[in-house]
């Protein structure tokens, strides 16, 4: 296939949909490392022009990894509702962008075309959108999901409390939980990353967080982010889990690197529906992040944004309660600096919401990337404006177990104040009951972890 832009000049010809998609991407070190990025800004814009004129049907018929080779492609293709697709297949990607940004288009109008979209179409339109386009359209979409409580409702902004400890010390994990709750964080989930991926540790963490939630009657949900098979074993032996977690990749070989496939995820979903301690119906939690496939040599020559979109296509199969990109964790060889991290964060939340999944973000950075706390605070402000469902928060922004920085518990209170938002209704009422919230904001007692001792 040869694809040409309307005002063709030398160098404006591309050989494949995969090539156009890769070269139309905003600059990312991961695409450069993979050797598939545009070689100049002129070539990048030429690719964007070629993509703007491409019909959605072309994207449907040319999935970036062939269906025969890849079960993620099959999941995405099988989920398309054909009559809706037939209505929009002649649109160009530029038409799709202009439909999404139109003032007449709201949540209802976006929902009307959603079942006709594939992950490749969503990736394509993302590449044509500016940062403000992404914020604008994300802010139109209201995607709610319910586990024990409901996230994503208008006027709310939720937070995952991440009380990790470098020794999986239960007392320390519960103390960090106390601290986070004292700041009003934790309505999305109390989710712990264990150091040791064993059934024993997973069970201990699930029991401790479950017991604490019961003791203090906190309207939220717990989760231990070990490998899905570890959680499944723990749950089968009776461990109390409200959610089942797994990291996802956008290709079959990428998921193989993570030790999962669609059959296993189906089994996990089925088990979660029957055995989770929550009332549901949404009981799955996934994390993703641009660059994971390249890092596992499972990218098939496809750019990292398109592969990220396919993660959401896969996630959608399981009606997740929470999905978040861990956007600055992977390192500077994939996302180089604050600018690339911010761009990727906006792209990921937009793409997730356009897939119709309850999307949040771990806005974060490691110490070898060219970013600092200011960059992720910028991203948090942009995504709060965009109406993301939730953020990850850790004590003072410093996760001493995963050795990276994310948003602080303090950021929750600041974002509620700036944007006049609140936690989920039952959680807010609980905060009032324990004396931490009144008149739409935290009380003087807030921030004191000894309240829960």
């Amino acid at each position, binding site marked *: 296939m040869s694809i040409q832009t309307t005002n063709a000049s030398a160098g404006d010809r591309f050989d494949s949909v995969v090539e156009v998609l890769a070269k139309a991407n905003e600059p990312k070190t991961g695409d450069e490392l993979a050797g598939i990025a545009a070689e100049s800004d002129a070539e990048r814009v030429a690719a964007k022009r070629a993509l703007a004129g491409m019909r959605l049907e072309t994207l449907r018929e040319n999935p970036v990894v062939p269906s025969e080779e890849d079960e993620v492609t099959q999941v995405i293709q099988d989920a398309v509702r054909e009559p809706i697709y037939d209505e929009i297949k002649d649109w160009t990607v530029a038409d799709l962008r202009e439909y999404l940004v139109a003032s007449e288009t709201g949540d209802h109008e976006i929902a009307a075309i959603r079942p006709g979209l594939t992950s490749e179409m969503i990736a394509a339109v993302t590449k044509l959108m500016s940062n403000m386009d992404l914020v604008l359209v994300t802010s139109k979409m209201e995607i709610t999901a319910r586990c024990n409580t409901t996230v994503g409702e208008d006027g709310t902004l939720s937070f995952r409390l991440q009380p990790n400890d470098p020794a999986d010390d239960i*007392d320390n994990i519960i103390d960090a939980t106390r601290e986070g709750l004292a700041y009003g964080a934790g309505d999305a989930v109390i989710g712990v990353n264990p150091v040791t991926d064993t059934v024993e540790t997973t069970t201990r963490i699930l029991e401790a967080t479950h017991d604490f939630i019961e003791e203090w009657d906190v309207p939220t949900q717990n989760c231990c982010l070990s490998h899905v098979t570890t959680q499944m074993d723990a749950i089968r032996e009776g461990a109390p889990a409200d959610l089942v977690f797994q990291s996802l990749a956008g290709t079959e070989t990428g998921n193989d690197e993570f030790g999962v496939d669609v059959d296993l995820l189906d089994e996990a979903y089925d088990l979660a529906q029957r055995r989770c301690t929550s009332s549901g119906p949404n009981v799955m939690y996934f994390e993703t992040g641009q660059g994971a496939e390249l890092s596992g040599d499972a990218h098939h020559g496809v750019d990292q944004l398109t592969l990220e979109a396919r993660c959401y296509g896969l996630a959608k199969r399981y009606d997740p309660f929470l999905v978040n990109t861990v956007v600055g964790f992977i390192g500077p060889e994939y996302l180089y600096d604050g600018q690339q991290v911010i761009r990727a964060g906006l792209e990921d939340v937009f793409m997730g919401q356009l897939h119709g999944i309850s999307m949040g973000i771990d806005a974060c950075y490691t110490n070898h990337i060219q970013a600092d*706390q200011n960059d992720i605070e910028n991203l948090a402000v942009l995504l709060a404006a965009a109406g993301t469902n939730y953020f990850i928060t850790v004590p*003072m922004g410093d996760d*001493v177990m995963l050795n990276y920085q994310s948003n602080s518990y303090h950021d929750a209170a600041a974002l509620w104040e700036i944007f006049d938002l609140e936690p989920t209704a039952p959680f807010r009422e609980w905060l009032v009951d324990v004396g931490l919230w009144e008149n739409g904001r935290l009380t003087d007692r807030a921030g*004191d972890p000894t309240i829960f001792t």
Partner: protein
Amino acid sequence: MASDSNRTHDADSTGKSGQVDDRRDEALRRIVDRTPTRLGVGRAGPRPTTASLLELRADHGLARDAVHSRVDETLVDDLELVKLRTQVADTDQYLARPDLGRELADESLETLRAECAHAPDVQIIVSDGLSSTAVEANVPELLAVLRDGLADRDIDVGTPVFVEYGRVDVMDAIGEELEADCCVNLVGERPGLRTAESLSAYLVYGPERGLPTAKKSVISNIHDGGLPPVEAGAELVDLVAEMLEREASGIDLRDDDREFTT
């Protein structure tokens, strides 16, 4: 608004509520003292206090400096290491292009061939990696123990080298060029906020370019607050001896679930 009213953890009250405050302060101290996490930091309105904000930035600054500063040249001379460099031009490129950090620059390849002993039992490599601070803090002590320990067992260490802008797998290229039986690469790890001094030792038996990570062994978290460098040196001597005897490393040597982070 009086800023004091929002600062939760000042022991500011006396009188009727004094006992309650004492009990709270004690409970808070118990929480803060036993955890490495930044708990009980208090707040100024919805934001961190100035002191805890600046402490975070100071710790991040130390970590950044460890990534961006270079290892002191006189240290490399004092340790009598042959100086080599990868194909990386500067720190920015080092961070973005791990592939270039695994191969020596042409002139360094020539230096390697000209100045380093051929076919040693063990080729010792020191790489700056992601923390020059880690190299400076640990390598002098560790290297002395490692050299002496290997010499005691009649294991030939050849000509130890220092690699600027080196990644873990640069040991594959160096070992292959010199036809070493095995390699030890001492690499500065990605700094955390608690310490920028963590070093790791990666080992490979039968080094050759492109050998998968699973074929390599690692001893990590080497620093005074973790595995002290002298102890790490002694552990490395034992591990090298075992590798040479069993002609294997990584999963071929034992079940090894340690993480590879560089």
